[in-house]
């Protein structure tokens, strides 16, 4: 199908940009390592808090949490590519072709999902090296991919609507910590105030973290639904952008 082929070509473009920036690649590898080490070390004693369910290391608990954090933060930047293309003139060049418009979003999201899956495998590898146990690897990869796809679409949509790099960076930075802290990514919710538990029920990061540790269809289904909803949002935003030209 030409649409798929075109999406693939578009995603190749984004892959190349990353591959040609060694600094960026290095950060992509080093960042999860740092997070694992720092969070793992600082919160080591968390497992000794009465009420912390399950036995084992905090690292076992933490690893899926780091994965979902990374999925959201990586995906959050996807919209920057769009903004860059709009400002540079590359977007117009693509819009005058008869190519399927969906390819631009899909290509960008595909690149993000693949990157996040690779990063997740890296984190799992690092965690195993550090002596952790990682259960449900398949589900972990799946929820990471779904979360990445959802937030990449969201980022693309916001990027196209806001058109300013600083605004997108601001929005992403603003959201990342609350999304992480109002979930069970780093801490069991039984040990957190009740209101956090309530908010977490509506937090996709929590859905992903919970499902990664204890797979359940409901949460995976919700994530899949969110992915579709975000994709619809990104498409609508792009249409709004096209009408404004």
């Amino acid at each position: 199908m030409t649409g798929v082929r075109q999406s693939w070509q578009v995603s190749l473009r984004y892959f190349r940009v990353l591959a040609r920036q060694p600094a960026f690649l290095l950060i992509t590898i080093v960042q999860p390592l740092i997070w694992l080490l720092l969070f793992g070390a600082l919160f080591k004693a968390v497992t000794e808090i009465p009420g912390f369910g399950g036995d084992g290391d905090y690292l076992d608990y933490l690893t899926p949490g780091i994965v979902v954090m990374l999925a959201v933060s990586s995906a959050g930047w996807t919209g920057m590519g769009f903004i860059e293309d709009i400002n540079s003139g590359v977007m117009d060049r693509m819009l005058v072709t008869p190519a399927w418009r969906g390819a631009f979003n899909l290509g960008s999201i595909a690149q993000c999902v693949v990157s996040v899956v690779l990063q997740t495998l890296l984190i799992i590898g690092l965690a195993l090296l550090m002596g952790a146990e990682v259960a449900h690897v398949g589900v972990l990869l799946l929820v990471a991919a779904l979360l990445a796809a959802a937030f990449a679409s969201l980022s693309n949509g916001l990027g196209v609507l806001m058109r300013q790099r600083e605004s997108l960076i601001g929005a992403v930075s603003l959201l990342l910590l609350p999304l992480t802290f109002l979930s069970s990514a780093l801490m069991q919710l039984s040990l957190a105030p009740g209101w956090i538990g309530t908010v977490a029920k509506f937090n996709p990061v929590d859905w992903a973290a919970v499902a990664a540790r204890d797979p359940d269809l409901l949460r995976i289904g919700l994530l899949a639904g969110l992915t579709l909803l975000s994709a619809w949002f990104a498409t609508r935003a792009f249409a709004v952008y096209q009408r404004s030209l």
Partner: protein
Amino acid sequence: MTRTVFEKAIEANGLVKRYGEVQALDGVDLEVEAGTVFGLLGPNGAGKSTTVRILTTLSRPDAGTVRVAGVDALRDPVGVRRAIGVVAQKHSTDPDATARENLVLQAELYGLRDRSRVDELLERFGLQDAADRQAKTYSGGMIRRLDVAIGLIHTPQVLFLDEPTTGLDPEARADLWAEIERLAREERMTILLTTHYLEEADRLASQIAIVDRGRIVARGTPAELKAELHREAPSDEPPSLNDVYLKHAGRAVAA
């Protein structure tokens, strides 16, 4: 790619476009015969780029009709996109990609899988040696040549050039003029170009229109327009296109 045969490459009637408070186009009519070079002149903000955006399906007019390459642009924009090539005022190259990668992407977006066209264009525009270096390492002239190559990848029937030689050194400009003349002559391509450079329009275009404040204020061949001015305001020296421009658009053109 199916190529329809048409007499008029571009037919636009009553184009109106408003951006908020600004009336960008206020009833623009254009007609371009197939296989000719048409020059669209006008001051900044006159509506040249807006007109080109509408003709190339990037924008939709608030009112009016548009037919490009025999296709109704409002009903079938995809059909128009298959037949046209665009070289925009802004660079459209991806600076992180190489010339080859830029051309391959564009080919794919047109559904072309044959890479021989890519090689052909790289050679024609003197980019073979730099083909596998990132575009950000290229000189301004090379980037412009790549912009043009990108616009030609699918052998369009109608080519739009929006201020193609702005910012180029004289040699690069002369080369691009020669290429435009060649395309018109050998490939019988219809070319619409917008420009500030009256010398460029005078030399390349067989028909000219001057747009000012969203309306076409003069149209004809360069010779006709100069003759008309000479009749109205006789002078010892025959009027130049600059004189014609000043008369209709009423503002000085920076030399």
